């Protein structure tokens, strides 16, 4: 289970919409309490591929986020990317390139921009399992930071 606030969700959505027609990507930072991931910060990262169908995170930005998280006693919980025109499920390529068994892989589909769909997955050795997401309405403890 992964928990985020409405503001975190808005931040992911805004980064994805701002990046159109390209795929957008970013990282989620927070804490893990009894197997529940609690998001505290959302980071929009640069898609180095600059493509509507692919993304590659900038490793320099990834390191910056990881170190920034550590300074606050937090960890990188997972990542998100957008699917501008396809459903919110990992593509074959998303699965092939998912190497971090601990990470949550969130996908935001903008196929219907009026009704964006956000889903989270765990991917281990190309086995995909959907992970429940809870979006809290409150915006306490909301913090954000973007590189772009």
């Amino acid at each position, binding site marked *: 289970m992964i928990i985020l606030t409405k503001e975190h969700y808005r931040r992911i959505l805004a980064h994805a919409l701002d990046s159109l027609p390209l*795929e957008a*990507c970013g990282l989620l930072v927070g804490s893990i309490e009894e197997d529940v991931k609690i998001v505290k910060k959302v980071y929009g990262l640069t898609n180095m*591929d600059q*493509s509507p*169908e*692919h*993304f*590659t*995170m900038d*490793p320099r930005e*990834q*390191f910056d986020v*990881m*170190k920034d998280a*550590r300074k606050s006693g937090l960890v*990188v919980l997972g*990542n998100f*990317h957008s699917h501008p025109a*396809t459903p919110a499920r*990992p*593509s*074959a*390529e*998303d699965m092939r*390139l*998912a*190497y*971090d068994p601990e*990470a949550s892989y969130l996908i935001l589909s903008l196929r219907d921009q009026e009704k964006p769909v956000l889903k989270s997955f765990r991917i281990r050795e190309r086995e995909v399992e959907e992970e429940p997401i809870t979006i809290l309405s409150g915006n306490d403890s909301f913090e954000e930071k973007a590189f772009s």
Partner: protein
Amino acid sequence: MIVKVNGNEVVLEKAISLKELLVVQQVRTPEYVTVQLNNEFISAGSFEDTLIKDGDEIEFLYFMGGGQAL
């Protein structure tokens, strides 16, 4: 000797290479990790030849990307 791996102290019995360290850290796909040694990027081709020294700070993370099949 003591090194720091992703912020955590790790005690090593003897000098090992970056490649061996990734094995100790249970990285199954070392070809898909990016490594910084004391804030310098180390190319994957140098993992085997790079020896870890006492006090080194090693950061590694997984390649993060995806997309539709080419």
